[in-house]
């Protein structure tokens, strides 16, 4: 844990040394929030029926959808980026030469991006609460668990991407494709129930579909675990399966890179 905290601290200090970037990251969030509120209010009558099971309020629906997408984007891209730049500047090799275990290093690499995303998510939710988003505080622990499962599922995709970068220097279309499909079919901006039937079946293989539905029902409608239990179960299966695949892929990529001598090619 000390090692993960040390990596998080180093990333935080590095990020705060780019002050303008930090200001833009938070400022951009506030700038996005204002039009989001007005557009959601305008579209509320049009979409009310389709989101009846997921909180009914389109603004809250959008806030949780976008906030969760922050996590998904971070989870998918961070590791591949960290591994790619680590190969380029030699930090990956330097860290792998220490006695730290690979999962610890990977955890440390993604700790800061996820922590910062959590801050942005919390800020977004607080702003939304300020303008009347419904929120079931008593379901917060369950919501935390759901977000954790979403993160595990998508970090696993990111880890597969990192494995591809480690072995072949590119993640190909995996990461962009995952984000595009998750955004379009995972119910970020609209309920998956409005997707035309033949495409809707594709949304069944997107972990975000189950995660977002469970999260919105839990936080916006105050649904109990029994109500969202099936969605959480499917999400957990996705997270477990993807995590196993990702561990296998990364271990294989690391073996390949050690065999071919490509851990660092700066």
């Amino acid at each position, binding site marked *: 844990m*000390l*090692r993960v*905290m*040390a*990596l998080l*601290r*180093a990333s935080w*200090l*590095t990020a705060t*040394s*780019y002050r303008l970037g930090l200001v833009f990251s938070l400022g951009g969030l506030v700038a996005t929030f204002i039009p989001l509120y007005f557009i959601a209010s305008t579209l509320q009558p049009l979409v009310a029926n389709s989101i009846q099971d997921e909180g009914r309020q389109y603004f809250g629906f959008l806030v949780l959808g976008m906030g969760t997408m922050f996590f998904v984007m971070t989870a998918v891209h961070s590791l591949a980026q960290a591994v790619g730049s680590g190969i*380029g*500047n*030699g*930090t990956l*090799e*330097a*860290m*792998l*030469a*220490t*006695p*730290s*275990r690979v999962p610890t*290093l990977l955890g440390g690499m993604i700790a800061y991006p996820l922590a910062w995303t959590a801050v942005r998510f919390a800020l977004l939710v607080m702003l939304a609460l300020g303008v009347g988003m419904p929120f079931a505080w008593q379901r917060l622990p369950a919501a935390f668990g759901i977000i954790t499962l979403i993160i595990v599922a998508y970090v696993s995709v990111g880890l597969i991407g990192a494995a591809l970068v480690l072995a072949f220097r590119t993640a190909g279309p995996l990461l962009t494709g995952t984000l595009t499909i998750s955004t379009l079919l995972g119910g970020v901006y609209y309920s998956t129930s409005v997707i035309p039937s033949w495409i809707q079946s594709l949304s069944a293989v997107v972990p975000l579909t189950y995660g977002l539905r469970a999260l919105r029902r839990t936080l916006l409608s105050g649904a109990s675990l029994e109500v969202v239990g099936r969605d959480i179960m499917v999400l957990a299966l996705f997270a477990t399966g993807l995590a196993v695949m990702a561990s296998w892929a990364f271990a294989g990529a690391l*073996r390949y890179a*050690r*065999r*071919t*001598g490509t*851990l*660092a090619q*700066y």
Partner: protein
Amino acid sequence: MSMAPVALMANVDTTLQKTTDPVVRVQGLSKSFAVRRSWGEMLRALRGGSSVYALRDVTCDIYPGEFFGLLGQNGAGKTTLFKILATLITPDTGTAQVAGYDVTRHAAEVRQVLTPVIANERSLNWRLSAYENLRLYAALHGLSPSAGESRITEMLEVVQLVDVGEKTVGAFSSGMKQRLLIARALLARPEVLLLDEPTRSLDPISARTFRRFLREEIVQRLGCTVMLATHDADEVFELCDRVGVLHQGRLLTVEGTEQLVNRVSEPRYQVWLKSPRHPALAELVRDQHVAHMTVLAGDIEGWSRVELEIRGGVDGAAFVLTTLHHAAIEVARFERVAVSLADVIERVVSSLGHEEHGN
């Protein structure tokens, strides 16, 4: 040209081998890498392709407290050997052990006792201070925060950066960054330190200071076993107790530095003197103390640069110098002609050829 392992082992200097066990033991280590193919070649044959040897049947032992030099041209296999020892590359065949741990089977244990100095300055975080860079790696080496702090201060003192420890690394010179990379590697107090061309980005004065620092602080004060890879023959001759010459993946020889210098150096001396036509010089040639004399540059403000091929080793050189002095020939400089890496390799290969024929 194939090099018989027997011939190679014959060149391992036995006088320097200690009674203690070697801290690094490399036996029959080989590694090859696939040659990158063009699109056309790949389309013609999807599978297959050729490979090139980076290391071939390398065998050597390094003893505790040694300053061991690995001399070779670019692409000789020095970095590959170091990366195998640092568990960053897996060997094809052969074994490598560090402090008794096998680098493939006990990689985690090896990383506890051996640290490579990753020579890439970019592997430091330039936005952070030297202290913060070291704090991160102290944690990655498993040091507790309190132990880490005292070790960081100690190592910054060793590399003489304690006064600038709070400055961001981006403001450091190349020499300072190199020293910080060494401090980073020393945090875990490794038994073995690997240095891969540590002076390549330093100017000559910084490089000289850095070499002195390596010898006095790292080896003598901290008692580290150091393996230094370089293509600079002078660097190895100045610093190392023993030297291995690596050429095209083969370890041509491992022997004491003095022994190698005497074996491969030519008995050529450059002398700046006045009156190169003095009879005493002619007499030295006639009496066979000097095998050959060439005037390289004549009469530069009264001085001539002369190259003498002197017989009788260092004693012969001393005799010639004394003779010049007694003959009242003014001498401004008297120095052995430095031997280049190419010369070292050429002569080692040549001497091995003679031994093989002799055998």
